[in-house]
């Protein structure tokens, strides 16, 4: 990653840290919180999908496992909501370990089928075990976060905003550190040429398992936070709608970039919400997102990061041409 890109990321995150000072409306803050949660989910999905090349369509299952872990532990077991959120990360990692056993040695479409079947299985377990999970109605009135006497539900989402933002910051730093490490480079090697990677001592199965487990940790924590923040756990989190929205964030943002899905999560959350407020476009917003995904895959498969790079290269080229024209050295 270039210094310019690191500087741009730091500036963007600094601006996000200042948002609540300017934006006092609790609904807009709520949108940011949802966007941060999706950003964590999408960027962590990028680790297994973009960096490892694993067509893992069960990533939202890890999110759902986090949601239900936190909900059950906080509501039923009466564990501290903070601890319940963290436990969401642990159970999601365990779920990833479970699914990685059959996935580690599979290729292409078979990975899609197994991971998708796993997500459907998880949803059926949630629906069938209604005594624990609340079945189709889910779990409601989950305890909220508080620090001492400070209750997070009485400050126009200020504390929740910073908690979600902190989660996104830690998750992003974690992901960037992982992809920059020798382990991260081995994932890219494995994705681009598995045989060559194996001939250089990389264990295909082990790296895939590690990638899935690592991508599940913060996804599960985000799921736990989602349940505690919204105070509800519903089987909808395993549904195709949530999955396709998160996938569109990864693809539109740019696979194998980490930052791309974060940007796309922010952009798409506000775009879909803005469109929901326009009469006649309430349901069309998902069609627009799907069309955007198709267009991006067709025109710039690398997503928004690739488009930004192209724009920058184009601007650089134009700038150089203008310089030479002005100097009169070349036509």
């Amino acid at each position, binding site marked *: 990653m270039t210094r310019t890109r690191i500087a741009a990321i730091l500036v963007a995150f600094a601006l996000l840290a200042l948002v609540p000072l300017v934006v006092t409306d609790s609904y807009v803050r709520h949108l940011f919180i949802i966007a941060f949660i999706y950003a964590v989910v999408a960027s962590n999905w990028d680790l297994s999908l973009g960096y490892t090349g694993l067509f893992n369509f069960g990533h939202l299952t890890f999110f759902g496992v986090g949601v239900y872990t936190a909900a059950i532990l906080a509501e039923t077991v009466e564990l501290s909501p903070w601890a319940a959120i963290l436990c969401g990360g642990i159970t999601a990692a365990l779920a990833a370990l479970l699914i990685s056993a059959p996935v580690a040695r599979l290729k292409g479409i078979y990975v899609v089928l197994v991971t998708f079947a796993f997500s459907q299985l998880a949803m059926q377990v949630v629906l069938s075990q209604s005594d624990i999970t609340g079945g189709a109605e889910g779990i409601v009135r989950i305890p909220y976060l508080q620090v001492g006497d400070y209750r997070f539900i009485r400050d126009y989402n200020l504390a929740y905003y910073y908690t979600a933002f902190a989660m996104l910051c830690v998750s992003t730093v974690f992901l960037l550190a992982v992809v920059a490490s*020798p382990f991260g480079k081995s994932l890219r090697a494995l994705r681009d040429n598995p045989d060559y990677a194996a001939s250089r001592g*990389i264990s295909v199965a082990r790296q895939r398992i590690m990638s899935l487990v690592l991508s599940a940790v913060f996804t599960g924590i985000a799921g736990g936070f989602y349940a505690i923040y919204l105070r509800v756990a519903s089987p909808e989190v395993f549904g195709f709608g949530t999955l396709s929205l998160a996938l569109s964030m990864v693809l539109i943002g740019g696979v194998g970039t980490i930052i791309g899905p974060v940007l796309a999560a922010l952009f798409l959350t506000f775009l879909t919400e803005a469109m929901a407020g326009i009469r006649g476009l309430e349901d069309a917003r998902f069609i627009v997102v799907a069309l955007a995904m198709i267009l991006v895959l067709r025109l710039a498969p690398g997503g928004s990061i690739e488009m930004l790079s192209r724009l920058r290269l184009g601007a650089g080229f134009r700038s150089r041409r203008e310089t030479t024209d002005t100097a009169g050295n070349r036509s």
Partner: protein
Amino acid sequence: MSNPILEVDRASRTFGGLKAVQEVSFSVEEGEIFGVAGPNGSGKSTLFNLITGIPFPPTSGSIVFGGTRIDGKSPHAIARSGLARTFQKDAEFPDLSARETMLIGASYAGGMSGRQAGHAADDALELVSFPEDRRDVESGHLSVYEKKQLMIGSALVSNPRILMLDEPASGLTRPEIAALDKLLLDVNRTGVTILLIEHVLSLLLSVSERLLVLNQGQILASGDPQEVIRDPKVIEAYLGGRK
């Protein structure tokens, strides 16, 4: 000779009804350069695949490396045991630079970490004379010769006991082949055993101490390279019966 580092015993590989490699047996002595030749489709690369387990092990037979049976072991474990290979087609990690590719080999196959891996990567790049100003370029943007250098270097970086090269001279110019000839001899002098598949006979005969010729998945001839290439069966297999 009595110190085999690699022993292949009746190794076979079938794909449905096709017998790609049939009952091939040979051994390679520690420290030698062992050549493998044969017409296209004779099973040379398949033989490499069986030995390294990439992408498949033998259907039957055994492969012993350094006294340990390795057929049935996972490919990465075979690589870590000191058996490094290159591929016939250009192989690269397009997103990784030359140095990063070397670090992969040093870290995983060589079991090195930190500075040790860094030094090994730099040494291997020097050994294959990889241009200094191209070491941070992504591999996808390298020339054919640079990719060859990188593939050989990334095999050498882990200090393997055997280096298996699959047609390293294909697509190279004469000066590049001459440089490759020198490199192979230099590497061999450091104690690395080399197993070499090559169509460029001048290179193969120049460096090989023994030569094995395959045809239709079976051994046609083996022994002293100069004698093997004069074998009428070998001439017929290569030239289709012309005298």
